[in-house]
């Protein structure tokens, strides 16, 4: 009888801990659950397009400032509001992008900056 109690206890304890661990993993595997981060990336990394996306994983609605620089010259300076867990695709239009050595996109939320750029030369 004692053996049966031990085996049943082991199965019960394992089932409970498996369930808890499974739920913890599933929740935390999410980009947003308990996370505070953002990401900025080019939609087409291998061509000259400047389309980029900002993803908000800060856990709250956030206002991002972004600027586009052609070389050292600021050509676009805007803001965009993005809901928590959402992403926003942005297609900046500037003249003669490839004439400049580098087009830089600076995105900022509060004190944190995210920079992406394409070097053309």
């Amino acid at each position, binding site marked *: 009888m*004692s053996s049966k109690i*031990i085996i049943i206890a082991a199965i019960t304890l394992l089932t409970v801990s*498996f369930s808890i661990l499974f739920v913890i*993993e599933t929740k935390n595997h999410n980009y947003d659950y308990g996370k505070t*981060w953002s990401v900025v990336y*080019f939609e087409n990394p*291998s061509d000259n397009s400047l389309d980029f996306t900002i993803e908000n994983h800060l856990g709250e609605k956030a206002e991002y400032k972004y600027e586009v620089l052609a070389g050292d010259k600021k050509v676009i300076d805007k803001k965009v509001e993005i809901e928590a867990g959402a992403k926003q695709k942005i297609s900046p239009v500037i003249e003669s992008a490839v004439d400049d050595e580098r087009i830089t996109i600076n995105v900022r939320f509060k004190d944190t900056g995210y920079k*992406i750029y*394409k*070097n053309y030369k």
Partner: protein
Amino acid sequence: MFFDLLRLILTFPFVFILPGFFLLLAIFGGKDGRLSFFEKAILTVPISIISVDFLVLGLNRLHILINGPVLLGTTTAFCLLGYIAFQLRFKKGGKQKSDGGEAFQDPFNFSYWQTIFILISLFLAIFIRATYLSDTIVPSATDMGHHMFWVQKIIDTGNLPNYGMPDFIIGEHIPFAVVNLLSSASVMGAMPILILFFVNIVGIFTLAMLAGRIFKSSKVTATAIFVVGVLYAINAPQGKYVSGGVVGNVFGNMLIPVALYFLYRALSEKDSVFAGLFIFSLTGLLYAHHLSAFILLYSIAAIVVAYLALNLDRIFKVIGDWIKIFLKPFPLLFLIFSILFFIFVYTPSYFNPSAVAQATGEPTKITRTGLDFNQLEMNAGSARLILGALGFVLLLTAFKRKEYKYSFALAWVVVLFLMSWKPGWIYVNVPSNRIGNYLFLPFSLLASFGLAEFLHFFRKSATFFFSTVLLFILLFFVITDGLADSAEVFKMRPQFQEAVQAFHSAQYLAEKLDTSRDILLKDHVNIYGDSWYKLFFMQDYKYPLSRGMLSRYVDPTKPRETCTRDMITIPETETAKKCFLETGVNYVALNAQLEGNSFEKYPDFSKIYSSNYIAIFKRNN
């Protein structure tokens, strides 16, 4: 989420309990006194794992695509065959053996207080591990990432992979693939760690079962569950090996005691059925983990030599008895089955003369020349080492050379100690720290015996006060030292944020890159969970390229490839530029805070992705 969890929980008994249960039923029937309920319950798991491995290897040999319905049908058919064999052997005129010599001395019939002690130990063993794993449950461990790549290959192709390298063994991957194909639980989820967690807990029981049988004492069984399960529950090779995905070791630590258990019972009870099951479990281990099999073979050799040396005066009788045990239809059947399986069904990738030659002989590297006493103490654990030494001495005081338990317990610990401390003495040429991880097995066995005998000794002592004080001092040391690693669990910080950012970057690259022409290099040194990148691409095992730990590039015995290091460390040098041309690397994924910042000054690169943790650069054409 609820249905995913339910499917996974229901798949566990189907894969890890039923095949073993029906095989044991076919062999022993329902009322055989040779196995207690406790032993049957424990043995169903390792026997299921080995059976499922053999079934999948057989399916692969028959060129049957491995998928969910096929596995469901094959496993069910296997269970049915077991049930039919049981009916034919035991129900229709077959005689049920009711006892097996030593069966009446059931070391698994626990008293009330022993049951309470085991339940508390079990609760602590599972609670400490689960708490630790809750901080590492999101996939991130390097080894696990490598293993899950091969598991995903099996899932995607329906065939077993050709590894092309001796590092991986098929039995390490089959159980994960089977659970995925039956339950749909992703390999990039909790499933792999839960399987290892389960195997690790069963491993506690298998060692306790071996200890119980060898010492024929329920006290020792109960103490073994405490010594293996609660002491050093997090240190390698326990919780850390589970979360780290050290699959082979975790499986090996469960299967080694099982093989020794069957061997012990075969020899001590002159029982050919156990001899057959010993061959079965040894074969299963050979398919599951090479190092564990190597350790087991050395252990068996030491036990055999020790017993023969101690019984030199009747050596021919002993050998004659062994031949009689193994030259019976049941073990011969398993032996022939194993040999045919090796030759015609599946030969493990490491099974070749050069691999054997590499692992034996004089140590060829400094890391293989043995551990010093401090390292040995760290591997086995101070409390376990002291209790094991105590058990060793106590066992010597009651030494009886004709009894197998002395050869098993003493020769096992001596050979593993020598393999770790002075491997050159016994021609072992394997990294010593890897062998040291197995020291806990024989030391736990002796420590359980030592602790149980110690408690017994002091309870009988005339000076009650003195004995109680000594007992508490010992227990205080054992518990404080043995639980020190578990206390660290509560100070850990989960790295889920880093892991999901690494996954996000890998997903981005998998969507944007054309893997037929784009070559990615990632940084293993500074990116957490980077080994899981390859699961997003599922190309060659070596895709994407990786900058490894810097020490790996320095090898005095042979020149190593250094391009993967130089392309990240010194990308603007001529050496690195040549490497970029030779390898075709045009994307580099880095830790944003470290190399990610310094890369911004190189005009040859565009920065295409930027998160808090990961930066990705594209090399300009």
